[in-house]
């Protein structure tokens, strides 16, 4: 970046301007994608479509909060999709038997237990987060399969307010925003303004330095992974309302995209850089991208190729743009 500044000062100034405001290029990209969509199919971008896009993006953005927060410390949480699925499935199957509040309590407890186990492995036993969360995802989905055999006859019921939250609309906008806006505000406030949030950045930037400055790294990590489990459980409840059919693989297809969303949003997978604001825009970008690829009449295979290629290109460009050293 510095080498180029002599040849093209204007260009370098633009790059510097964008680099200092990491959210701006993402917003521009989002606008560009929406524009391309409108050109591809004039008239598609209307109030209804925007509401739909937001509705689809909300669960993705919430699950990506798990990835963003853990990635800030240099970790990852691949069990988030499983925890969300478990929470959703348990809620749907227990509601007819023990009522809504108890079912949701059990469901969220299950998701938090997964997080606590993750935290124990990562913080106390120093297992690599990737391995630890993959392992708990495996165990969790096995437990879900066994659990399903006990409740197979009882039938399922989805609490009404979850359906309202997942599919209802208020003034054209999805009701999911009633949950998501406070949630996002809380996460952004926590990461920027609280001690816990700063400790996440500190550990991600340099764990040894953080430990030497008196941070009890294991406590932070344990709390973080438990929190991640809780967020995943909450996402599962919301997603249940969106999809309205509980299944054993409900939120699993969101697992890898949630990582992609956090990465597109500018959070470094090595820790210490990024934030939840970018992740939210990343979720919108991914949603618009999926719509665009669905609109283009190309076979499923071609769509996946484009999806992968675009994730890679966006990440690479964004890295170039924001890394100034």
């Amino acid at each position, binding site marked *: 970046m510095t080498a180029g500044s002599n040849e093209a000062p204007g260009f370098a100034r633009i790059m510097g301007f964008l680099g200092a405001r990491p959210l701006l290029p993402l917003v521009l990209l989002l606008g560009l994608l929406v524009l391309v969509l409108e050109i591809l199919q004039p008239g598609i971008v209307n109030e209804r479509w925007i509401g739909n896009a937001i509705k689809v993006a909300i669960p993705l953005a919430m699950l990506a909060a798990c990835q963003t927060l853990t990635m800030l410390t240099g970790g990852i949480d691949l069990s988030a999709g499983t925890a969300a699925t478990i929470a959703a499935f348990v809620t749907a199957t227990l509601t007819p038997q023990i009522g809504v509040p108890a079912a949701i309590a059990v469901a969220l407890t299950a998701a938090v237990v997964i997080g606590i186990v993750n935290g124990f492995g990562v913080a106390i036993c120093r297992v690599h987060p990737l*391995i630890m969360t993959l392992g708990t995802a495996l165990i969790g989905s096995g437990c879900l399969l066994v659990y399903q055999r006990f409740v197979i006859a009882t039938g399922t019921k989805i609490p009404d307010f979850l359906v309202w939250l997942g599919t209802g609309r208020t003034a054209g906008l999805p009701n999911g925003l009633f949950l998501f806006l406070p949630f996002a505000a809380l996460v952004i406030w926590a990461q920027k303004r609280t001690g816990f949030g700063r400790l996440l950045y500190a550990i991600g930037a340099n764990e040894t330095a953080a430990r030497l400055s008196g941070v009890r790294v294991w406590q932070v990590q344990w709390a973080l992974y438990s929190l991640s489990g809780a967020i995943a459980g909450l996402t599962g409840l919301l997603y249940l309302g969106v999809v309205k059919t509980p299944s054993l693989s409900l939120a699993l297809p969101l697992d*890898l995209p949630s990582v992609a969303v956090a990465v597109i949003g500018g959070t470094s997978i090595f820790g210490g850089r990024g934030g939840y604001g970018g992740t939210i825009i990343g979720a919108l970008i991914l949603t618009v991208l999926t719509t665009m690829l669905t609109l283009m009449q190309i076979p499923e*295979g071609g769509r996946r190729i484009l*999806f992968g290629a675009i994730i*890679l290109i966006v990440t690479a460009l964004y890295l170039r743009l924001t890394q100034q050293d």
Partner: protein
Amino acid sequence: MRRPQNAWTLGLAVLLVLLLLATRIIQPGFGLTGLDALARAALPFALATAGMTVVVIAGGIDLSIAAMMAVASVTGATLMQGAGDGQAALAVVLVLALGVGMGAVNGALIVLTRVPDIVATLAMLYVWQGVALLILNAPGGGAAEWLRGLIVGGVALPGVAAWLTDWVPKSLVALALVVGLIWLPIRRSRLGLMIYAVGSDPLAAFRSGVPVGLTRVAAYAVCGLFAALGGLSVTLSTGIGEPIPGPYLLASVAAVVLGGVALGGGRGAILGPILAVFVLRLVRMDLTLLQVDPNMTAIIEGTIMVAVVMFGGVLALRGRRA
């Protein structure tokens, strides 16, 4: 440095023998056919694990391995369908070259774009999945009979009494040959040393004159080669090409970790992970023989994996403090 590594591998080997004995006790009829079935079921897993091991030693990770195996599987099945014997051999060579190519693309993209390995291969996972679907939209194609004969049944050598060699599954020999022929020469050469050096500390390797980027591309290319072999073995054992990636990604990462290869890179050998594959497959088979609910199998497998890595982590922590 070498001794704890060897102890870990030895422990895995002992565990494997104990599990084989246990299988014999559970199922007194367990014999040649059982061993053959085990080796054949483990073959794609073992090849995927071998590929993953090389990349992990070089300090990376390849999330796209199962998708690359799917591409190799459908390419092989499409080329071999209705082809003669000679053409089938040519198809195998082509698929292997394709594997090297796919791996090299992965590696080159990681080096050129400087996107972290895990993110770049996550994106490539979608790309290779798409390629596999474009080649073959549904399971289909075929496999040459003589190639299938290479991995089915026991070994029969001319001039040697049948009882001496009959109990060795061909697929096990194929696995040993392939891994031995590909990895051992690399391990002994400069490239092997460079792969370990890059995985251990890229900066130190760079300052010692190792071409870090090229070495990483080479490691991913080797991984692609193993993935192509794994995909071919899927096609050969089922007789058709399968465009949907199998469960090889999670299984190979699990086996690599159980096999004593550090995820940070630079340490480990290929034998441990392959032994770990057989241990995991055998546990699964024993549980099926014991008529345990197949769903419990996933829980037990996951618990074993998590328990072992936790135990390993605590051990490593102790070692550092001492």
